[in-house]
Structures are given as C-alpha cells and as structure tokens.
C-alpha cells in the first residue's frame, strides 16, 4: 500500500521543471497568470482533498498527493521569475509591491498545497475506518475552508479588495469550528478510547484545514495589499489571531 504514496521519480520532476522554465514570466501580467495557474492547481488539490474527506474517496486523496510535486515546481519557478522581475528594474512602485505580494502569495499557496497533501495522507489513513460517520463539524469546517480559499482566489483573479476583506472577516468561523472539533475529539476519546487513533486523524485533518483557512486569509490580505497598497494584517484582528495561536500550540 505504501508504494502508492511514492512521489514522482526525479526525471518527471525535471521535466516539469524544464517546462516551467520555458514559460518564464517576464512581465507582471504573465507573472500574474502563472500565479493564477498555481492557484488553480492548489484549489483543485484542496477541492479533491475535501472530496476525499466527504466521500472517503482514497483515489482523490492519492491524486492530491501525486499532484503536489507540480505545485512545488511551479512555486519555485514563480519565485525565480519574481527575482528576475525585481532585478530588471523596469517596475514602478505598484509593480514592485505586486511582485513582493506575489512572492508571499506564492509561498502561501505552496503551503496550502502541502496541507492539502497532509489532509489526504490522513484520509488515506482513515480508510481503514471506512464505515464510520464523520462529525458534521468536520464537514462544515471543510466546506468553510474551501469556500474561503475559493473566495480569496476569486479576489486574487479579479484583484477585488472588497471580496478579499470579506474572506479575512470569515477566518473566525473556521477557528470556532476547529475549537469545536477539539472539544468533540477530546470527549469522544474519553468516551471510546478504542477509537483514539481514528479520532486523532480527524483532529489532525481539522487542524490542517484550519491552517489552510489561515493561508487563505493571508492570500486575501496580500490581495488587499496589491490593490490598495495597505498592509491590513495585525490591524483590528489581533484578538482573533491570538486565540488562533493558542489553538495551534
């Protein structure tokens, strides 16, 4: 069974990388389109992993894990393009701000891709407990996270600061659900210690999803940064981000 999780061999990775190289983005617009391509990848992976959770569909989970290499290769390629663009000295203020934000969004997207992979691994581990029902909190959490990610990427496509701010404001809901999952899992472990392993998988999934939502929020913040030139993180959301740190520890 383990062999199925094997990553692409090195030649495939080199091919993908070379292909990316050919499509080097020499203008902000091309860079943006490349970033959108990465976002498409990541969103697809996130959707697949939620599909995998909901339908306990290990094929979807496997595809997420397999697809992560392309996400990584694309991320590296975008980062290199950003450096080239910054060095070129052809950018105005807004251009530099854009490239800097792209660098951050790029890293965030890559992390979302990784987390989708992590969720998928957990779903595969859950496979053995197939017949059991998932808690509605987890399904709701997955839906919310996915919708936050989708909306933040929509905001990225349209450079829409209004939509982006709406995403930032929803981070709280996901944190609450994650907290509820924590309580639920703790209670169930106490009630049915035999299910501990399965419940810990569920808790992990919940935490990964919550972090995907965090990254979705980061992306939305950077969209606001590109569109308005204002850094909105740590402003007015301090209370929430502290409670979110306490949950992660």
């Amino acid at each position, binding site marked *: 069974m383990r062999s199925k999780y094997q990553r692409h061999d090195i030649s495939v990775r080199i091919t993908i990388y070379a292909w990316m190289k050919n499509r080097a983005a020499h203008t902000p617009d091309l860079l*943006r389109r490349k970033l959108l391509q990465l976002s498409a990848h990541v969103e*697809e992976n996130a959707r697949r992993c939620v599909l995998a959770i909901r339908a306990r569909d290990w094929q979807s989970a496997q595809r997420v894990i397999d697809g992560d290499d392309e996400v990584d290769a694309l991320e590296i390629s975008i980062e290199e393009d950003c450096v080239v663009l910054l060095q070129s000295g052809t950018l105005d203020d807004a251009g530099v701000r854009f490239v800097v934000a792209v660098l951050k969004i790029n890293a965030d997207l890559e992390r979302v891709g990784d987390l989708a992979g992590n969720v998928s691994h957990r779903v595969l581990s859950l496979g053995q407990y197939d017949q059991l029902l998932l808690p509605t909190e987890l399904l709701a959490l997955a839906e919310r996270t996915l919708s936050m990610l989708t909306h933040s990427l929509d905001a990225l496509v349209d450079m829409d600061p209004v939509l982006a701010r709406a995403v930032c404001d929803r981070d709280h809901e996901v944190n609450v659900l994650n907290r509820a999952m924590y309580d639920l899992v703790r209670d169930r472990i106490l009630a049915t210690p035999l299910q501990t392993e399965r419940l810990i998988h569920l808790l992990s999934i919940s935490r990964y999803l919550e972090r995907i939502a965090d990254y979705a929020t980061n992306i939305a913040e950077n969209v606001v940064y590109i569109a308005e030139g204002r850094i909105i993180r740590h402003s007015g959301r301090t209370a929430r981000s502290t409670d979110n740190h306490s949950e992660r520890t």
Partner: protein
Amino acid sequence: MRKKRLFWQLYSSNFLIIFLALFAFTFLVSGSFKNILLEQVSDDLQSRANLLYEEILHRLVADSVDDLDRFVVDLGEKAATRITVILPDGKVIADSERDPNSMDNHQHRPEIRKAMHGEVGTSTRFSATVQRNTMYAAIPVKDGDRLLGVLRTAVPVHQAEVNIERLQLQIVLGGLVITFLAGLMSLYISRRITRPIEKLKQGARHFAEGRLDLRLPVPDSVELSDLAEVMNTMAEQLQDRISIIVQQHSEQDAVLSSMMEGVLAFDTEERLMNINSSAARMLRIDAEKAKGKSIQELVRNVGLQRFVERALSCDHAIEGYVTLVGDEERHLQAHGNILKDGEGEMIGVLIVLNDITEIRTLENVRRDFVANVSHELKTPITSIKGFVETLLDGAIHDKADAMRFLGIVSKQADRLSAIIEDLLSLSRIEQETEREHIALASASLRDTLFAAIQNCQHDADPKAIAIQLDCSGDLEAMINPPLLEQAMVNLISNAIKYSDERKTIQVTAEVTSEEEIRISVRDEGFGIEAEHLPRLFERFYRIDKARSRKMGGTGLGLAIVKHIAQAHRGHVEVQSTPGKGSTFSLYLRRSVPDEEQIPTA
C-alpha cells in the same frame, strides 16, 4: 480655413452681382440722362436763337443799336432767356440782362469764337453776370457772306441739374428697392437650391448612424436627384449586406448556443475570444464578463489550462480529457484545433468540450453490473460447489452432516434461482416496456395493494410489524396489476427488512394532481444516508453489502421497482432521514393518452 455654408456663398454672390449690376446701371443711365437733358437744352437754345435770327439780322443791318437793345430786353424777359448780341470784334452791343457798355469784350468766349467761324457754338459755364451755371448757344448773324455779329442765347442750367439730381435719386432709390426685392428672391432661390442638399446631408448622416431603413427624398433637379438615388441604392445594398451579416452572425450564435458541446475560442495569448452558453454553463463562467480574460483568470483548472496551451503549440487537432473538480467531479472530453484567419495566419485555438460525466457514469454502471452479477452468482455457486465436494469426499456418509450440507446447498440454490428470477423479470420488464407490450388497464388500486400486503404479511408477523393501508376503494389508475403487485411487494418487504421489531409501515395511495397518483411506503426503519440515495435504484447497488446479503436480498428489488414504474410511465422517488425512516414513492398516471409514446428505459 473656416468652411462657409453653401447657402451663404450662393446668397452673398447673388447679392453682390445684383448690387453691382444696379450700381453700374444707375451710373450709366443717370449719365446718359444728363447728356440727353443738356442736349435738349442746347437744342432749345439754338432754336430760340434761330427764331430771333431774322429780327436781329434786320436790326443789325439797320444798325439801330437802341432798338436792338430794347428788342432784346423785351424778348429776353418774355422768353426767360438771356439774349446777347455781339459784334464781330467782340464788343457786346445788346444784352437782355445788363447794360452792354459795362460788359467785357466777348471775343474769346468759346461759343463766340466758334460762331465767328460760322458754326453754331455751345458752351456751359459759370456766368459771372448772372452768378449761375449757364448754357450758351451762339449763332453767327450773316448778311450774305458778311458777318454782322453773333447772336447768343443763354439759359441757366440749374433747373436741368435739379431735374437730373431728382432723377438720379429716384434711380438710386428704385435700385435699392430692386436690390432688396432681388435679395429676397435670391434668398429664396438659394434656399431652394440648398434645402435639398441639406436634406441629402441629413439623410447621409442617418446612413452613417446606421439608420439604413430611411430613404432620401428625391429632389427636382437632375444632378441632386441622381445623387439621392445613388445614395438610396447604396443604403439599400448596405442594408441588405448588413442584414445578411447580422443574420449569419445570429445564425452562428444560435448554432453555437444551442450546441450541447461547450465551445471556446482563445487567441494566441490564451485570452478568450468567444464562448457559447454550454461552455459558460459547464465552466461556471459569466459569458458577458469573460471576453478578453485569460484562461488562467477564467478557469481555475490546471487540466484545461494545459490543454489550451497544448492546443496553441500544436499544429494539428488534439484531443484530451479534463476533470473539473467542483462539488462533484465532472469529466469533459476536449478537442482543440487551431483557428486561422483568411490569410491562413493562426489567430488562436478553438476548444470544444463534451461533458462525458453521464457516459462515464453509465460505463461505470455497466461495468459494475457485470462485476456484480458475476459476483452475486459466484457466491452461492462457490458455496454449493464446496458443500457438494465435501459430500462427495465422504461427508455423505455422515447423515446428520449430509442433511445439514444439503440444506445449505438447497438454500444457496434457492438464492441462485431468486437472483436469476429477478434478473429475468428485470430484463423482461425492460424489453416489454421497450416494445410496448405491457398492457395497462384502469383498475382498482386497493385490491392490488391489499394483495401485496397479504403477500408480505408472513415476513412482517415474526417481527410484529404492522402494515397499515390507506387507500380509498374507488381509486383507480392505469396499471398492470401483477407488475404493480410485484413492485409493492418489493417495497414492502424492503421496509420490513430494514425496520426493527414492533414498528409500523404505512402504505398510502393518494391523488397528487390531475394526472398523477402517488403510492408511498413509509417505514420507521434505519434510514439511508443522503449520499446513497441517487444510486439506490441501480442494479446490485448496496449500501452495506454484508448486511444486505445476510437479509437474503438479491440487490435487484429496487431496480425492478424502478423499471415497473417506468413501464407504467411513472417514476420513483425516495426520501430518507438516517435513524428516522424512509419513504419510497411510486408515481403513476391516472390515465394515459393514446398518442403518447412509452418512454424507453
């Protein structure tokens, strides 16, 4: 240079021409009038002199100077003419106005000099004597060839000048009036010339604005009417061509939008040029806003992005599969081909998308079916074979074991036969539905439902399950009673199987609309999770394989129900809440119109 209006050009030049003509006319006419008047005066003077000639000659010959002077004064007063008589040496000897002795020598006056030479002399000049412009006419007075003197007559020309001035004034005033009237006429004519041009201009502007249905009025003049007709023809042809283009365009649009396939066109920079409604629906794109956006912005799907890229880099048609991950996966078959313009230059790619999710699902169903049938048949046969071999190996000699094994073999053979029976009836219903062989007749529902319940009663009794029937006796529908009974038996026995002891099953038949009757079977059993509901009526679809087989199901019961419903031109539905129970509903037609085709399963 600022452009002038044709009207003003016409009008001002007309006006100038009229003005100049009148001016010249006035000048010439008044000049010649003056000449004519002065000539008249001079003729008059000469004729007066000629009248006096004899008298003066007579007196000169007589050399009676005093008499001459008296005569001259007297006549001069009467004729209002100044009369002067001058001797050849220039001395004035008689004058009607003044004393001749006080006057100068007149020898050098131009008229006198002429007269001295024997001609008639005239002259007009200012007279110091009478202090006025005066015209003089002088004739020689001769006795035979001897010049005796000169007779001069003179009148002031003042009156003539006044007359001339008055005349000139009249001419100028008349000229002004005529100029004014001519100006008005010229205005009118200019208007008449320019108005059709103005209308043509407006018409042409309407054409330019695209209102090609308007027609220009045809003016009277040949040139303009030709122009108007040519423009009208042009507008007509343009309208025809535009309407052809519009029609072709809307035909294309109609073709594109009525296509089931999604069609997208991208330019060489991967920006969307065109999209039809199917594609917009498949990809959940707002077609209005989508034009000009890049594929990366439009669709967050790597497969499709790559496909467009590949299509752009290939010089031949390509084919591929794209999976859209939404709430559920959708499978698209994609065809890509290069778009070329009139010169064969590549302008982009055309992508045609075909939603093959249904086909994929059907393929899966068929594959599952074959696998399931084999599996379902194999299980009892393996069991039968195993026990028969055991018996052959010697177990047959142990009577107790042999009996037990044979019992199992018999049970498995029953199961096998049940599966095959179900499969056969399923295919029979299917075939007969297709060939329209199933006879439907109006019959009482209550009897059929009651029979079905009776059939199931022996299953329900051990679990103490109550089956209630709610159906009025006069309710009739177009049914095939044996088939409907089979469907109801399947539904009720399912309800019994999946209910705990001492629950109630409610069978209800009711009229839901003018055409439809609903028969529902409601249980208080375990219920079914939502994700299983869409596939519940598929053959061999089982929620829990182990449990279903243990209960002795063939996995075909609900499939048979579905096909029976279709044979009745109705359909089935299921609602379920896990833990609370399920309701299976069978919808039947109350009456069937003859001309209607039976839908094929």
